[in-house]
């Protein structure tokens, strides 16, 4: 029975692992931290899995656990961002219609997002993942209206970081 559970979990996690990778990408600064957080999220998902009843999609459920782990449970303190050069390059695959200027701009944006605090990153993450404000508000435990207000403030903040 427990083997069955493990098998089902591992295969579903393998299918949905990009969710975790994406969160690690926002919340960590190097490969070691990325792998460390990936492992912690996997452990937390596995611990919570017996209670997962399939009422929601595995991915929806995993989003929540993964975000909560990154924001709250993960212990390694985030190092001061200013001293760390976040290597966005490793995520980039050269595209055919190579636009140097746009790519530079996107690199700056990634850097700016890394300077946000944990909660702001969570909002940005869900925005990038096309989550609606109802889900964003529910996941974080704030009101929908305030989630919108906060999102607008983050957009302004990002602009200020990029064009000081």
């Amino acid at each position, binding site marked *: 029975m427990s083997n069955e559970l493990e098998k089902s979990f591992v295969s579903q996690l*393998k299918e949905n692992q990009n969710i975790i990778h994406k969160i690690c*990408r926002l919340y960590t600064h190097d490969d070691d931290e990325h792998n460390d957080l990936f492992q912690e999220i996997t*452990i*937390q998902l596995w611990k919570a899995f017996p209670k997962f009843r399939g009422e929601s999609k595995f991915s929806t459920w995993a989003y929540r656990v993964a975000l*909560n782990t990154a924001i*709250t449970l993960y212990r390694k303190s985030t190092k001061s961002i200013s001293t760390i050069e976040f290597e966005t390059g490793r995520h980039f695959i050269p595209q055919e219609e190579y636009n140097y200027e746009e790519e530079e701009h*996107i690199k700056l944006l990634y850097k700016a997002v890394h300077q946000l605090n944990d909660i702001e990153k969570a909002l940005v993450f869900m925005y990038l993942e*096309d989550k609606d404000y109802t889900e964003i508000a*529910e996941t974080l435990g704030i009101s929908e209206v305030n989630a919108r207000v906060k999102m607008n403030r983050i957009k302004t903040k*990002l602009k200020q970081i990029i064009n000081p």
Partner: protein
Amino acid sequence: MEELDLLKKDWKKNQNFREVSEKEIYTMLHKKSSSIVKLILIISVLEVAFWFLIGFLFDSEQYFKKLNNPYLVDFFNVFTIINYLVIAVFIYIFYKNYKNICVVSSTKNLMKSIIKTRKTVNYYIWYNLGMIIIGTILGFALAFNTDPNLMKLTEHNDSVFYIALIICFVSIVVMVGLFWLFYKLLYGILLKKLFKNYNELKKIDL
């Protein structure tokens, strides 16, 4: 185009991560978690064990028996029973709060439940410190009123009594101060991130 929408375009395009194999996931499942909740649990268990041991080390029952005062022995027994009851109730509440920590709940609720669990232990520590203070004061009063050796000492010279009183007072202040500092440091480091994020979340809804 809005900055974030530009980022979104790239975010969706660049999702090529190193694939973690099933074998690697299996290995991870059997690794130990290093989450803050686990750490709080370990520290809390150590704290309860510590105070439990302190209770045994400072066993004053023998002293009371030596004084040969049946009222004192009775008083002490009631005191001990109450103390064990408090420990039992505390462990129950702690366990209940700990079990309520649910990683699937909203971020705010998860943080709240962790803070609540942590607070239970804090109350227990303050209870113990309070008991030590009361115990010391009671012990002090009893000793000077019932111990024939001490009574003889203070019979002609009050200064022994005052010196003992000052020493007693200073020790209590130093002890409570040290504990306060230790916990401030320990939980300051441990819960800094949690409180920062919790306050940030609360601020959004203000």
